[in-house]
Structure formats: structure tokens, C-alpha cells
């Protein structure tokens, strides 16, 4: 049985295909169209999935869309009705979108797929599971657990903004849910907006900013108190009720009422790209602490309701890896599985799983030899030699080819140890927002200048933002305060205590950039200002070449740890093809590009004649 899952029309459109319960391929549309968070119907991603599976669209059993459009329409109408006449402006914006397209989603989906191949409407079923069921399915079905609690938290789907389910065998039972307009995800997005970042994409920047806040300071405590007494009512089961008099999203076109928030916090909304001040960092820390408290309370409620030993998580808030780290520390569950594409892109995969197990009732088999069923999330397009040679020929690129993998790995490990920054494009592309070592930029963790260089000369992004480490799974506990696996970079843990360098006495009074440039550990490139790191463990089972590279780097330097950041510049989707990689490599200060078995040395490449500017090609995120 073959099923195609689709998520589209909001943000992060994607397609995924499964056969007899096994995921074959999954990809986000943005990687093909080169438009970050592309909401358009994922024609390219769906075409790739079908080609990868080697199937005609008319030979698949069902196409599954990741939410229920009519239920979402009901939410919109009831909201407008409840707040009338306040929501007129929003109504005037939304109705044309719905009346032109979204109410006729069946037709739209079929017609979009017709551009790949004419779909036989009578033969191929079209199904619509609920948004949070798609999220829950994306986390539970590929997990290694027979029985688990499932927690989904995001901005909003149809009505639900968070849910607690029980997953057992091939069944998912919804036990409790929180509904719009009360939403932990929207609360976090409101602060993202107020701190001057883009809603829907800047949330992870707010999370990265929070460690610059002064823990335990009167300012942070004051902000936490304001949030908990004025903005929200946080219940013992983790439910949050947002006082709508401070929020504009239900009826307007902004997240909050700027003037009311200015009165509450004592400063205006930060303009995009303007200077970040300590108060912004303190506010980021305050909302992070409240979010962590809510997530832990929800998890405790999930434990109480299900009695399960394990927890699966999905939804945009599950990408808050700092909260995930705290949740792991709370030891409410034996182990937590967070699906790598926890946001809406993963809904495509979840929708396909939901149809397979719930609608068709197929048996679920767990392979006990595998960490999970997602193959390291390396589910996208593959890298082939012919494409690389074509790119080299097109741009007259000079390369060195390595027939032997061990020689390649030895060479690259030596280059990294020598301080070079490497574009690493290998195997199948990752599914989900994180680069997990298939489309990554990698570098030496020991270099104190590396974070600054990567941010300002390679990625062209804000200087305060941290970088994440990759570490051999076998060695994780020697370098970090963590003993378990973390294959999808979704958990934040401290660098090992013995490796941390104590703060100077006046640390809290330092400016943001002074805090940043204080040497914090023997792995300064990946140690955030609060000694934390967003961990990814590398496993031989899922990424043997990168595992070998780390082994080789360890033998040369003693460190089985490297910096890993996504292979892109600010505002650009992560690279997909060798051509994307070569272009990105040539437009930045990267030193070497390693794509498949080929190494391109920047110093030997012909002058880059394309005078294109990434700042005009990609909108800043």
C-alpha cells in the first residue's frame, strides 16, 4: 500500500511517501523552489517523492492532506462571529483566500497534481486527517515505542493548539486538547513579534537570544510575573489561557496590541534589524522560562493521563530544543522521541502514516534493531556523481576526486583540523528544518574565532546566534551533560562541567557582544553563553560517512566533535542540489566544498563571475 502525504498553503509545504508503513521519501517544497518556508502546493516535492518511489500517481492508494479545511473554516467563521465587528480587516483579508482557493481544496489538490500526471479522481482516494492528528502520527508511528504518550503543541491547526494523545500499536486516541485562541505557540510567536523577529521563522532566534538574559535578575523575574499575571493564566495541566485584550491575532493582522505591551513591559516593540539590548534578552529569557514551565506541566499531565513510559512530541513548539532539554532533565518519562520534522512540513508524513494505520488499519511493526523508522531523516534527494560533474563542467570548477572513502574522510578531517570551513553535501537531503550532516557547513569546535567567522562571513547572520555541535554518539557523555542519543538535534544540554570555563565576576553586567566573546569552554565555537549546546549525536547506523569523518577528526585532534550548521546563507533554504551547494560555496568565505567524492578548493576555482547578491535573491529571515 502506497500513500502520498501533503502539507501546504500555510507555511513549510512538503510531500512524503510511504509504502507498507515504511517511509520512502519526504521533502520540503522550499528546497526546490528556493523560497524559504514556501507555502505553495508542493508540486516539486510530490514529483520527487513519486519518482523516488518509482510509482505512478494513479498506482498509489491515497493522497492525504494534513488538515481538515472545513473545520479550519468553521474556526475562522466562529471567531469572526464572536468578535464582530472587530475582525473586519482580518475577515477582508482571509475571505478572498478561502473563496478563491481553500474552500475548494479537493479540486486544487487534484489540479495541482495533474501537472505531474493526470490523476484518476475515482481511483485515488483523497483523505483529510486533523492537523494535530497528523502531528501526533508523525511522532508516534516512526518512534520505537509500542505504547507512548503523545504531546503536540503548535500555533494552531483547525481548532486545536495542543493535544495529548495515547499511542498504542497502530492506534492513536486523543485524550485532551487545548483550543484556539489559547495557544502556547501563538504566545511564543507574540514575543517573537514584540522582540522584532519575523513570526513563523524567527522563533528559534528568540530561543537563541534567551541565554543572554540574566538568570535570576529582578528584570527577568518582573517580566515572568507580568506574563503570568497579566498575559496568561497557566493551569496545573499546562493549559494556557491568553487574555485576549492584549493579543490582536484573533481579529487583526498583528500578533499583539503594541501600545498595551509597551505599557506592560516599559519599552516599545523592537524594529527589525535594530540593536538588541539587554531588555530584549531578558524578555526572551522570561518567555522561554514560562514556555518551559508550560511544556513540563503538559508532559506531566500526559503522563498522568496515559501512564506511559515514553513520550513522543511534534508541533512547532517541539522544535524548542531548550524546553526539550529541560523536559528530558525532569525525568517524567524514560525517553522522549521528537520527530525531526516537528513543524508543519512533518504533517505531510504524519498524514500519510495516519491514513496507513488509522484509516486502513494496517499492522504496525517496530524494528527493534533501529533507533526509529526515519532513517536519520535522510529522506530527500540523493547526491549523484553525474550531477556533480555537470556542475563542475558548467562553472569550470576545479576538483579533486577520491575513489576511496577513507582517503576522502582523512583529507577532510585534516582540512577541518587546519581551521578550514567546509561545505559538506553528502547522500540524501534531510527532511525537517535542521541540517543533520547531509547538507551542512562543518568546522573545528576548538577555534575561538569560529562562531564569529561563521556568523558574519559565511552565513551573514546576526552575530549573537549560536552554533550546534555534532558528536560521535559513543562519546557524547565525555563532552556534554547527556548520556542518551540525540539524532535530530532537538535537545539542548550543557557542555560537560569539567570543560566549562567559569564566568568572570562581572559577567551579568557585560554587553551582549562582550558576553559572546568570553571564552566559555574548550569547545568555544559551540558553547552558548549559558554553557549550553544543541546536541546532535552521529550514528554509524544512519550516517556512516560523517561518523567516519568524526572518528578521523578525533584521531587527529582528540575531539570527536565538530561545528555543524545548515548549508545556506541567511534567508536561503538549505541547499538541495550540488549546483545550489556550489553557488553558495562560491558566494561565501567557505574554504572547501566536499560534495559526494569530490573536493573543490576555493583557491583553485575560477573567479565567480555571477555578480548576484544573496541579499537581493533571498529575503532576510
Amino acid at each position, binding site marked *: 500500500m502506497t500513500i502520498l502525504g501533503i502539507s501546504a498553503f500555510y507555511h513549510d509545504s512538503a510531500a512524503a511517501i510511504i509504502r507498507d508503513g515504511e517511509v520512502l521519501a519526504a521533502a520540503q517544497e522550499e528546497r526546490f523552489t528556493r523560497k524559504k518556508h514556501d507555502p505553495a502546493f508542493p508540486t516539486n516535492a510530490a514529483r520527487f517523492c513519486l519518482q523516488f518511489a518509482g510509482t505512478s500517481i494513479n498506482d498509489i492508494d491515497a493522497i492525504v492532506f494534513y488538515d481538515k479545511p472545513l*473545520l479550519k473554516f468553521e474556526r475562522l467563521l466562529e471567531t469572526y462571529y464572536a468578535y464582530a465587528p472587530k475582525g473586519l480587516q482580518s475577515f*477582508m483579508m482571509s475571505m*478572498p483566500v478561502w*473563496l478563491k482557493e481553500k474552500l475548494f481544496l479537493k479540486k486544487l489538490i487534484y489540479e495541482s497534481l495533474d501537472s505531474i500526471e493526470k490523476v484518476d479522481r475515482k481511483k485515488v482516494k483523497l483523505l483529510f486527517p486533523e492537523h494535530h492528528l497528523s502531528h501526533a502520527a508523525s511522532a508516534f508511528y516512526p518512534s520505537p515505542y509500542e505504547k507512548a504518550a503523545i504531546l503536540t503543541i503548535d500555533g*494552531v491547526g483547525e481548532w486545536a493548539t495542543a493535544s495529548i494523545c495515547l499511542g498504542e500499536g497502530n492506534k492513536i486516541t486523543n485524550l485532551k486538547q487545548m483550543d484556539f485562541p489559547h495557544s502556547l505557540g*501563538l504566545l511564543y510567536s507574540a514575543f517573537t*513579534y514584540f522582540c522584532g523577529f519575523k513570526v513563523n521563522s524567527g522563533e528559534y532566534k528568540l530561543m537563541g537570544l534567551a541565554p543572554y538574559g540574566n538568570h535570576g535578575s529582578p528584570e527577568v523575574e518582573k517580566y515572568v510575573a507580568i506574563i503570568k499575571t497579566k498575559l496568561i493564566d497557566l493551569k496545573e495541566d499546562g493549559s494556557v489561557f491568553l487574555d485576549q485584550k492584549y493579543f490582536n*491575532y484573533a481579529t487583526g493582522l*498583528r500578533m499583539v496590541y503594541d501600545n498595551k505591551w509597551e505599557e506592560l513591559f516599559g519599552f516599545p516593540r523592537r524594529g527589525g534589524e535594530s540593536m538588541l539590548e539587554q531588555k530584549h534578552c531578558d524578555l526572551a529569557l522570561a518567555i522561554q522560562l514560562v514556555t518551559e514551565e508550560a511544556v513540563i506541566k503538559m508532559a506531566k499531565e500526559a503522563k498522568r493521563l496515559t501512564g506511559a513510559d515514553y513520550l513522543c512530541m511534534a508541533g512547532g513548539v517541539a522544535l524548542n530544543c531548550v524546553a526539550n532539554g529541560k523536559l528530558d532533565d525532569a525525568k517524567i518519562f524514560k525517553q522522549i522521541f521528537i520527530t525531526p520534522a516537528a513543524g508543519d512540513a512533518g504533517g505531510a508524513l504524519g498524514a500519510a502514516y495516519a491514513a496507513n494505520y488509522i484509516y486502513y488499519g494496517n499492522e504496525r511493526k517496530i524494528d527493534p534493531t533501529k533507533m526509529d523508522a526515519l532513517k536519520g531523516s535522510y529522506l530527500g534527494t540523493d547526491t549523484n556523481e553525474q550531477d556533480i560533474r555537470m556542475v563542475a563542467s558548467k562553472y569550470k570548477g576545479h576538483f579533486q576526486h577520491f575513489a576511496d572513502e577513507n582517503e576522502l574522510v582523512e583529507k577532510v578531517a585534516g582540512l577541518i583540523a587546519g581551521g578550514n570551513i567546509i561545505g559538506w553535501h553528502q547522500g540524501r537531503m534531510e527532511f525537517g528544518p535542521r541540517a543533520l550532516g547531509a547538507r551542512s557547513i562543518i568546522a573545528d569546535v576548538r577555534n575561538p574565532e569560529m562562531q564569529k567567522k561563521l556568523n558574519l562571513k559565511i552565513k551573514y547572520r546576526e552575530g549573537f546566534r549560536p552554533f550546534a555541535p555534532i558528536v560521535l554518539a559513543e562519546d557524547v557523555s565525555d563532552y556534554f551533560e547527556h548520556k542518551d542519543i540525540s539524532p535530530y538535534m532537538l535537545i539542548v544540554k550543557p557542555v560537560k562541567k569539567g570543560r566549562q570555563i567559569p564566568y568572570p565576576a562581572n559577567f551579568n553586567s557585560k554587553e551582549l557582544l562582550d558576553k559572546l566573546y568570553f571564552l566559555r569552554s574548550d569547545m568555544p565555537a559551540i558553547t552558548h553563553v549559558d554553557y549550553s549546546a544543541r546536541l546532535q549525536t552521529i550514528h554509524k547506523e544512519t550516517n556512516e560517512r560523517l561518523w567516519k569523518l568524526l572518528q578521523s577528526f578525533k584521531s587527529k585532534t582528540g575531539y570527536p566533535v565538530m561545528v555543524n550548521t545548515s548549508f545556506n546563507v541567511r534567508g536561503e533554504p538549505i541547499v538541495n542540489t550540488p549546483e545550489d551547494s556550489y553557488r553558495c560555496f562560491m558566494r561565501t568565505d567557505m574554504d572547501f566544498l566536499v560534495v559526494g567524492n569530490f573536493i573543490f578548493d576555493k583557491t583553485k576555482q575560477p573567479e565567480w563571475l555571477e555578480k548576484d547578491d544573496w541579499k537581493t535573491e533571498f529575503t532576510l529571515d
Partner: protein
Amino acid sequence: MDFLKDLWQFLRARKKWWLAPLIIVLLLIGVLLVLGGSSAIAPFIYTLF
């Protein structure tokens, strides 16, 4: 027609008959809006619709 059938089944399943007149009125207003202009998504808000 497919849409009207789905809408009818939806109202029946959700038992939200009270929404029917609301939907009709809002749809009529909505049609006028569609005929009257176009839309753009604001960058300051989560994609709620």
C-alpha cells in the same frame, strides 16, 4: 457541487446548523470582497488563515 455536498455533510457531522445562515451571509459578503479586490498576507502574524 462537490463543495456543497462536503459542506452539507460537515454541518451534519458537526451538528452546527446554526452556522448555516452565518456561512451564507459571510460567503455573500466574501464574494463581494473577492470581486472587489485582492489580498496580501501580513508579515506580522502567524498564518492563521
